[in-house]
């Protein structure tokens, strides 16, 4: 054990004296720190703003004067999504899904809004999110620091001299791993602080611990790989070249190939195509604004029979309101079917994409990190579903007021003169229908269950690399 520490300590002394390593270590820490500080500030700022905007939106809605209830249906309402505590570390797809939804009658404004194909653009993740730094930049910096760990000793011949001192090759390998691992801890420390901050904002400790451990394992995978390659190659140059190639492949090329292949495998109708399909389906329903539309004849007949009256005018409820309510219900069914299909396609894309994590640990940690942070596609879907629930309830409350509090005659004659228009209104008391909305991500247990595959993939990589280093250690032993 102490031999490992002696070797690790000497490695640090070497780094301190070699400018490249020292500068790289400093850059790593500065980058980690700034990315955490910057995202923490911007997320806190956004959350603050969002709380304010949400309150404002609710207030404006509630403070509307007496109006025709259907005007309020189109006046609409905004919902803002607050970020999860760990989105300070991994904003995930938040950075391009948008965080506000406009809720109004007859439309689901965001159901077709998100699009998984954006995830192939690396820049979409925000170039300096802590997650990006850890997943993509940190391995590169580790390579710069550690590529010569063993190859330097081979090249200079100190390796055989070390072994002749009675040191075992294993001790040397593990000592170098220990040294590089301590760099991981150093680079991770700002992230750990960020995670603790997230914990203080109510994130569950099970999630925080799994999150930190996952990144630790990810960097350990790279550490084992770097030391193994450095031991396998006979010169610093070939070690460096090989490691950089692997990094390019694992962190840049494969994720892109994965995204493109996924798009090819799981086809996504374009937004226009989708919109046309929705429109065509909706047209079959009839126009809910026009109670004379033949589509509502059956509804009319049923109502007249139910209340045993002859004419629509004699109904105790406003027929126009009933039509609006009914057609909203029918239309929502159709919209929900489309939204559900869209979400299933997006989920399929994301699970297909996750399969590529068997080929690169970078995708394993990327999926895992977003799932744990609650910034992945399924979290976004949860928000969409909850927003739709809010939308449907508020529109139907208004339609109910329309049916029950506004006389049918007054309603249909509202365009006769300005006085008639004045009369066709209901009290502003009816606007008190909004509940406080606050988006909550899936709970810890659900998120841990969702991330099971990615956790397995990361564990798989750890095992593979441990075995790899083991083989390298055995092969090079004399």
């Amino acid at each position, binding site marked *: 054990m102490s031999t490992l520490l002696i070797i690790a300590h000497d490695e640090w002394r070497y780094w301190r004296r070699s400018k490249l390593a020292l500068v790289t270590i400093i850059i790593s820490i500065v980058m980690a720190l700034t990315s955490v500080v910057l995202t923490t500030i911007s997320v806190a700022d956004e959350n603050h703003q969002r709380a304010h905007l949400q309150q404002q939106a609710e207030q404006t809605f509630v403070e509307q004067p007496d109006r025709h209830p259907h005007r309020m249906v189109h006046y609409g309402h905004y919902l803002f999504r607050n970020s999860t505590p760990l989105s300070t570390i991994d904003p995930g797809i938040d950075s391009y899904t948008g965080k506000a939804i406009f809720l109004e009658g007859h439309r689901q404004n965001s159901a077709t809004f998100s699009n998984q194909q954006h995830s192939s653009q690396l820049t979409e993740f925000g170039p300096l999110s802590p997650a990006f730094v850890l997943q993509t930049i940190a391995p590169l910096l580790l390579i710069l620091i550690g590529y010569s760990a063993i190859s330097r000793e081979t090249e200079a011949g100190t390796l*055989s001299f070390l072994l002749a001192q009675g*040191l075992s090759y294993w001790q040397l390998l593990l000592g170098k791993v220990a040294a590089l691992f301590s760099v991981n801890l150093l680079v991770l420390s700002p992230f750990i602080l960020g995670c603790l901050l997230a914990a203080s904002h109510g994130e569950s400790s099970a999630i925080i611990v799994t999150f930190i451990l996952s990144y630790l394992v990810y960097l350990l995978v790279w550490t084992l790989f770097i030391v193994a390659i450095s031991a396998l190659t006979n010169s610093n140059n070939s070690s460096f070249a090989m490691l950089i190639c692997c990094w390019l492949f694992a962190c840049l090329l494969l994720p892109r190939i994965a995204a493109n292949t996924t798009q090819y495998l799981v086809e996504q109708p374009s937004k226009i195509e989708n919109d046309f399909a929705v429109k065509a389906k909706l047209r079959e329903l009839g126009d809910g604004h026009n109670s004379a539309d033949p589509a509502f004849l059956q509804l009319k007949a049923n109502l007249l029979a139910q209340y045993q009256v002859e004419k629509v005018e004699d109904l105790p409820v406003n027929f126009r309101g009933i039509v609006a309510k009914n057609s909203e219900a029918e239309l929502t069914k159709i919209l929900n079917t489309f939204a559900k299909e869209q979400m299933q396609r997006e989920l399929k894309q994301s699970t297909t994409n996750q399969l590529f994590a068997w080929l690169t640990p970078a995708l394993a940690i990327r999926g895992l990190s977003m799932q744990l942070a609650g910034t992945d596609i399924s979290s976004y879907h949860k928000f969409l579903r909850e927003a739709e629930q809010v939308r449907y309830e508020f529109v139907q409350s208004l339609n109910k007021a329309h049916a029950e509090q506004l006389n049918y005659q007054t309603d249909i004659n509202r365009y006769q003169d300005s006085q008639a228009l004045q009369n066709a209104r209901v009290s502003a008391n009816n606007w008190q229908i909004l509940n406080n909305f606050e988006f909550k991500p899936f709970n810890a247990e659900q998120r841990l269950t969702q991330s099971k595959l990615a956790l397995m993939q990361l564990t798989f990589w750890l095992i593979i690399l441990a075995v790899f280093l083991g083989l390298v250690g055995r092969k090079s032993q004399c």
Partner: protein
Amino acid sequence: MKDSVISANNLSVAYANQLVLNKVNFSVAQGQIFALLGGNGAGKSTTLKTFLGTLKPQSGSANILGKPVHQHINTSRKQIAYLPESVMLYGHLTAIENIQYFLSLADIKQSVQQIEDALTQVSLQPQAWHNKLSQYSKGMRQKTAIALALLRQAPILFLDEPTSGLDPAAIDEFNQLMSQLAQAGSTIFMVTHDVYGACQVANKIGLLHQGELISLFNAEHNQSIDTETVHKAFVRGIRA
């Protein structure tokens, strides 16, 4: 052969089926200095590496304290201090730091004073002690490595061409140092092609030619081995 500290027993070594050492036999008792002489490519370094355990014999054995090295690598390495043909120490460390590092890896504790004494013993100038080894000449590195080998306080010393790169005065001092160590009980195995130096210090000289030990010379009664005889045999061997 019981009290032999270093012995080769029908030792054959091959690199990828090409025989480099062929049934070599010799033994060195405690307190003796054995010099293995031979031309370039004779198999000297190969012999030495087999004793260090970095090469496995094809047949026969290289023994330390009567035990085959390839079966007892760790115990035999603890008995050995090794000075490689070209000295491989760390360029980013000073002489003292290098020595401290290697000693700590071998789990040997020596005070700075003891390290400085050893550096004085191998006559490395004190001004250089705290300079990084990347600034050292070959001879200075060699001296540092010799100091390290002394400080290891191992009962057995393996030296590969220890005097190459040293100036004549340093060679003389080195040879004296070896004699002192042997008198104090160390057993020394050195590989060299310096016939003169070998005859000066060695109790026993083995002449290696194309992987075969063609002759063995023993010093009799405190007399050194005759340089002329060895030289003739050496040259004849090379010419043959």
